[in-house]
């Protein structure tokens, strides 16, 4: 008995040490840098650059989960985020008191997320029988339908102007829209969703999803209900997108049809592709690049003597350049660089395993 207990304890210890050691030094640097960021970054950088990057990264992460692991390119993720944002505005507090129910956050947020997941599952259920370009078309159609419906419906969605004054709750006496608090709030949820996706990718559910992507017929021949698995993936992705949507609504304190318009819907796809669909870190890299470009390209263009309104051009060109050099996005470039470094004969032994 004692022996077994001892070895078990020893094993647990081993694993703990192993876990800490398995995280390379570069990762620790990034983690610590992110944690102490508020010490030296400006309020604008924290709130507008990083806060927004984390949020868009989460919404793009939900697309990466579906597209990268499940092979389903869904353009509806921004719509799901928008729907979740609308739901906290409708069930929670906003300046539009005629419509908003004013329920407390611990009721309105779960309702918003549940509705987002139900909507995501419904879209999934409609689109899992299609493949490739048809999935893109169906989800794009649903996204545009939602945009026009929200814009024309005044009873529930308050039409063109949507809702303003949608604020996060003053939990623990903290103003969560303060730049530092908001930075940590978004950082927390971004890291959590990133780690959960990373963890799920090696769970039976995640492995099976990748199996469904590579070989649906074989998965059915192993006893998996392929369509049910895909719908479950949509539901999970909708949860991440929904959390991102609520944070996005709090950040701008408003939600309107334009938040989930066709432009933003496509932007999420661009973010995910720029970053890379192979690994859950990709969407966050893509989101950061997108936010930096979108924020500073106006200044950059006016400095060059061009019209500032042409910032979309700069984003488009960057997109083309990245996709041209590496179809796998920034992550693909990174892999290429690592591999070329691995060819060095002096380092050959260790790198060949990659």
């Amino acid at each position, binding site marked *: 008995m004692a022996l077994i207990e001892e070895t078990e304890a020893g094993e647990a210890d081993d694993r703990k040490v192993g876990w800490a050691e398995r995280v390379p030094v570069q990762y620790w640097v990034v983690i610590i840098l992110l944690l102490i960021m508020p010490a030296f970054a400006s309020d604008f950088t924290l709130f507008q650059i990083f806060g927004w990057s984390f949020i868009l990264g989460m919404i793009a992460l939900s697309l990466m989960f579906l597209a990268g692991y499940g092979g389903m390119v869904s353009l509806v993720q921004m719509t799901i985020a928008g729907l979740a944002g609308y739901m906290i505005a409708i069930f929670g507090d906003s300046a539009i008191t005629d419509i908003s129910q004013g329920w407390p956050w611990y009721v309105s947020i779960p309702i918003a997320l549940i509705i987002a997941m139900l909507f995501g599952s419904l879209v999934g259920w409609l689109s899992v029988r299609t493949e490739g370009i048809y999935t893109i078309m169906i989800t794009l159609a649903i996204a545009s339908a939602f945009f026009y419906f929200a814009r024309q419906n005044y009873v529930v969605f308050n039409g063109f102007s949507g809702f303003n004054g949608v604020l996060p709750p003053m939990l623990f006496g903290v103003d969560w829209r303060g730049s530092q608090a908001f930075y940590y709030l978004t950082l927390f949820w971004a890291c959590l969703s990133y780690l959960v996706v990373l*963890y799920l990718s*090696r769970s*039976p559910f995640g*492995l099976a999803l*990748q*199996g469904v992507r590579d070989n649906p017929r*074989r998965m059915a*021949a192993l*006893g*998996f209900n392929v369509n049910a698995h895909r719908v479950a993936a949509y539901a999970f992705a909708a949860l991440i997108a929904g959390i991102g949507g609520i944070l996005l609504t709090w950040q701008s304190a408003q939600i309107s049809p334009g938040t989930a318009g066709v432009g933003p819907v496509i932007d999420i796809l661009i973010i995910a592709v720029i970053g890379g669909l192979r690994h859950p870190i990709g969407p966050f890299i893509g989101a950061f690049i997108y936010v930096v470009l979108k924020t500073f390209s106006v200044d950059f263009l006016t400095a060059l003597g061009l019209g500032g309104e042409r910032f979309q051009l700069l984003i488009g060109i960057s997109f083309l350049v990245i996709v041209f050099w590496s179809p796998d996005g920034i992550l693909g470039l990174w892999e290429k660089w690592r591999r070329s470094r691995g060819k060095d004969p002096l380092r050959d032994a260790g790198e060949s395993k990659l």
Partner: protein
Amino acid sequence: MNAPTTVSERLNATGTANALELRGVSKLFGALAALSDINITVRPGERRAVLGSNGAGKTTLFNCITGDFLPTSGSIRFFGEDISEFPAHERIRRGLRRTYQISLLFTGLSVLDNVYLACCGVSRGRFSLIRPRRNDALMASAEDLVRVVHMEDAKDTLVSELSYGQQRQLEIAMALSGAPRFILFDEPAAGLSPTERRELVEILTGLPSHMGFIIIEHDMDVALRVAESVTMMHNGRIFKEGKPAEIEEDPEVQALYLGGGDG
């Protein structure tokens, strides 16, 4: 209609019914009849070889039985239960298994992960969000299966790095996951070396005696050594049925197989 629903009913059905019963199964691809009016009865535990030239409809037969596609007409009963309309995954969950002629494996995953997925597919852990731990029951059964096909040294190797013969072995390990009651082997010996063939015959003859199977095989040596009955197919029809010795000596079969004919 009167398909058994409860576990005990299904077990009772196991005792009395045939493992596999095909009645009047036909499959049309447009105007082409890949299968016409196939009637096959296989007892529980029976080992049957299906022979026939290319295009005889052997793999189509397998695809109809596992539900990869539905037959145009006819009924399929599996241990007494009518599975004609069931989707593939429901048939697999009832204990039917198959291997594929062209390996359909997950090349980006390791050997063990492939088998582990197969074990998940027929268990309640399909949707599990928890990563497998070292003492995970499914992982343990996956490791057992890897041992059954003598691949324990290659269990962490990516499938894309396996030799062709090893991929065929892995196919068999995946078909043995869960509690198979009946297995369809689609040309498991194709492309194997003589040594690998001997190992394959050992694995097949070493299967528990209640586990019946149908094997499609061009190599008469393999087919006749592992099977106790033979079905000859030709142009989508059943041409001959009998014991291996009878089939081997049948002049018509010899004319078809050895005389060259239309191959």
